[in-house]
C-alpha cells in the first residue's frame, strides 16, 4: 500500500527548496520548483501467499464467490485463479478497508439512494459481517453447508437471490453486499496486476487492452487496426525500476 504519511515525512525533512520556517512551521516553497530525489511514491506490489485480512474460512468463501461472479473458461481464468480474492484481501487490509480517506464523522443515518452509502462500518467490517451472515444463511438453507461447499448451481442460486432480494442475510442488506463484492471483484479482475488480481494480465489480454503503454503516437492514425504491442503492466513496463 502507499505510504500515506509520506507528506508529513517530507514536511519535516530538509529539502533543497522546501524549507521549514522557524516562524511558521508550514512548508514554504519559494525560489524555484522544489524537487528531491527518491521522494516518489510508487505502489508496492502485492506479495502472493497467505491472507492479510480474511480468516481462512472467509477466504474460502470469497474465493468460491468470485469464481462464480467471473467463472473460468477455456481462454481466461476465473475470479479465483486470476487473484480477485487476493486483491480484495489486500485492499481490505489497507486504507480502502479502513475507509481511511472517507468522511466517517457522525451522526450516521439512512438517507435516500441519491445521498449515497451512509454506513458507519468500514469496508473491511462490512465484509466481516456479511460473510459470516452469508455462511449462516447458506447453512440454514442448504442443510448445514456453508457457501463454499455448495454446488455451482446452488452458489448461483444464492447469488441470484442476493441480487433480487429473495435471499436474506441476518443483519446485513444482501443486495448491498452483492454490489460491494461485485464491484471489488471486477476491480480485481481488471486493475493493474501489481495489486494482486488480473494475474498475468489475463483479463487485459481477454478484452484487448494493451496495458500501461504511455505512447501511442505511432498508432493514432492507424484506424481500425488491432494494436500488436505486447501487453504490459506497471511492474512489467520498461520504466519500472523498483
Amino acid at each position: 500500500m502507499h505510504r500515506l504519511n509520506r507528506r508529513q515525512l517530507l514536511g519535516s525533512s530538509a529539502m533543497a527548496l522546501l524549507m521549514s520556517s522557524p516562524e511558521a512551521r508550514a512548508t514554504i516553497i519559494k525560489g524555484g520548483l522544489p524537487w528531491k530525489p527518491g521522494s516518489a511514491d510508487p505502489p508496492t506490489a502485492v506479495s502472493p501467499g497467505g491472507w492479510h485480512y480474511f480468516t481462512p474460512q472467509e477466504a474460502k468463501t470469497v474465493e468460491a464467490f468470485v469464481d462464480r461472479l467471473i467463472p473460468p473458461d477455456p481462454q481466461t481464468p476465473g475470479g479465483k485463479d486470476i487473484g480477485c480474492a487476493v486483491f480484495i484481501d489486500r485492499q481490505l487490509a489497507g486504507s480502502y478497508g479502513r475507509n481511511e480517506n472517507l468522511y466517517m464523522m457522525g451522526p450516521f443515518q439512512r438517507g435516500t439512494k441519491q445521498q449515497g452509502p451512509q454506513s458507519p462500518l468500514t469496508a473491511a467490517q462490512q465484509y466481516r459481517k456479511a460473510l459470516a451472515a452469508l455462511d449462516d444463511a447458506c447453512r440454514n438453507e442448504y442443510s448445514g453447508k456453508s457457501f463454499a461447499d455448495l454446488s455451482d448451481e446452488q452458489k448461483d442460486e444464492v447469488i441470484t437471490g442476493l441480487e433480487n432480494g429473495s435471499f436474506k442475510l441476518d443483519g446485513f442488506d444482501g443486495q448491498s453486499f452483492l454490489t460491494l463484492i461485485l464491484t471489488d471483484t471486477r476491480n480485481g479482475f481488471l486493475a493493474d496486476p501489481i495489486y494482486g488480481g488480473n494475474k498475468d494480465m489475463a483479463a487485459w489480454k481477454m478484452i484487448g487492452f494493451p496495458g500501461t503503454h504511455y505512447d501511442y503516437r505511432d498508432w493514432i492514425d492507424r484506424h481500425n487496426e488491432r494494436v500488436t504491442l505486447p501487453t504490459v503492466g506497471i511492474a512489467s513496463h520498461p520504466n519500472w525500476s523498483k
Partner: protein
Amino acid sequence: MARRLPGKDAVIIGLGWTGSILAHELTQAGLDVVALERGPWRDTATDFPISYAQDELRYRLQHQLFLQPAQMCVTFRNNASQTALPVRNWGAFMLGNGVGGGGLHWNAETFRFLPTDFTARSHLTQRYGEKFLPEDMTIQDWGVTHDDLEPHYDDFEYLCGTSGTAGNLQGKIQDGGNPFEGARSRPYPTPAQKQGYGHTLFAEAAKQLGYKPYPQPSGNLSQSYTNPLGVTLGQCTFCGFCEWFGCANYSKATPQTTILPVLLRNPNFEARTECEVTRINLDNTGKRATGVTYVDPSGEEFEQPADLVLLCAFQLFNVQLLLLSGIGTPYDPRTGKGQIGRNFTHQTMSTAVGFFDKDKYNFNPFIASGAIGMCIDEFNGDNFDHGSAGFVGGGYIGQVRTNGRPLESMAVPPGTPAWGAKWKQALRDNYLSSVICGGACHASFYSYRDVYLDLDPTYKDRFARPLVRLTIDFHDNELKMSAFLTDKYAEILQQMGAKEVVKQPRKGPYDVTDYQTSHLCGGAIMGDNPDNSALNRYLQSWDVPNLFVQGAAAFPQNAGYNPTGTVGALAFWSAKAIRSQYLKNPGPLVHA
C-alpha cells in the same frame, strides 16, 4: 490565539489555476504575495512519474490526487424538506486539492462560452419573451461580455498552448472549426490534435447528417509549445490516462507546466502548503479584509495580515469561506434575498452507448487524450430556435471518449447479466467495438430559486466548522433538454453504423453518487449591482472591496461547455482590473 505574522501586500487562498494566474500577475506588478494552499506540493517526477502514473485503481477509483472527504466534506440533499447527509465518498463531482488544484488532473478541454451565454436572460427574453422562461429560473446576465473577455480567453489559451481549429477568426467563419463560436482575434496557438478512429467516424457521420463537426479544443498539446512566459510543454502521446491523472509527459496544460516554474522563481512570491485558511478576517467596519487566519500542518493557528485578499479555492469552498467569514448576506431561498449561496449550478450530462459489430469495428479506445474528440455545436446555447423545443439551454454533443481504461469501460449490451459467464463473454466481445462516452452531451445547468448553498446545521469539518450544504435537483427544463440532446447524439451513433444504441438521458432526482463533471458553479455570482450579485464585473466583492473571488463561483448559471477556459479568462480579466485600476486607487471598481 493565532500568531500574527508580518503583513503581505496580497494573500492568495488556494494555488490552482486562478491562484497561480493572480499570483503571477500581482508579483509582476511588484506586490509581495503569499499563497496558502490546503493540499500538498505536487510535481510530475514525484507524484505521477511515467513509471506509475497510469494506475487506474489508485488515481481514478481511489482518487489519490484529489481532496479526500476525510479532510473536507460537503453535505447534500435534493430539496429543503430533506435532511442533508455527508457525501462520504465522492461521486457526482471530484474536488481538487494541492498545488495545481483541479488544473493538475483535468481533461484540459479548453472552451470559450458563446457570446449569448453572457447575456442569457436579456437575450432569451428578447428572443422568446419574458414568459418563455420558467417562473423559478433565476438566470441573469453576467455583467461582462464575450468581447470584454476575448483578449483574456486568448491570454489563457496562449498560456496553455491550446490545440484547436478556429471557427470564427475576426468574424470570418473558418472551415473545420466551430462556426458558432464568438469571433476570436487569432488562431489557437497550436493546431488541433489528431483523432482516433471512433472520433473520426463520428465526425464523418455528423457531416453526413448536415452538422459541422469541429475538434474539441485541447490542452493536451498536438505539438511542443513554448508559452509567452518561456515555459515549454511537450507533445501529447495519447496515453489514455489523462483526466483524474497527472500527466507524466509535461504535455497537459496545468499550473505546473505553464506558470509555476516562472512564478516560483519570483522573489516576491512564496507558497505555504498544507495550510488551511479557516476564515477571512475583517476590520470592525466589516467592509475591509485585514487578512486571513490559517492552520498549519502542526495544528497551530496563524494570522496572515494582507492588504488584498484573493479567494482562489474551489467554487464550493469559496462560498463556504465567505459564509464562515460573515462576508455578504447569506441567500434565503424563501425570500430570494441575500447573495451568498445563490444560483448554485452544476452540469447536465448524458450519453448513449453504441455497440458495433466486433468483426468490423475496432476503436482502440485506449488511444486517446483527455480532450480528444469531435463535437458539434448546433444544439448548444441558443444556437437553434428553442421556440418549439419547450426548454432553454443546450450543450455540445461529441464523441469525446478519453480512454479505454478497463475499470471505466465495462459497458455491455442491455440484457446481459451483471455477473457470470455471459457477463464475461459480453465484456470480451464489446470492449474494443463499443463507443462509451460519458461526456457525449455536455449541457447547461441553469439556475433556480431552490438550488443553493448554505452552511450545514449538523455536520462539521476537522476544525469543527460547518460543512457547506448543497441543495440541488434537476428541473424539467434541464431534463427535457437532456432527452433532446441524447436523441440527437444517438442518431449520430446510428449513422456511424452502430448495431445497437442505448440512450442514457439524464434523469432526476440529482444523484450525488453518479459522476457528471466537477463543474460546480455559482454561489457568489458576478453581476451589475449588489442587489443581484455578490461580486462586481471584476470579481470584486461588493461588500469588501479589497477581496476578489475567483473561479466558477462567479458564474450566474452554467453554460453547455467545460468551464475552465472561462475561469482562466475571468482570472486574467480580474487581474488586469486589479493591476490597471485597483492598485492605483484601492476601492470599489464599480460604484453601486
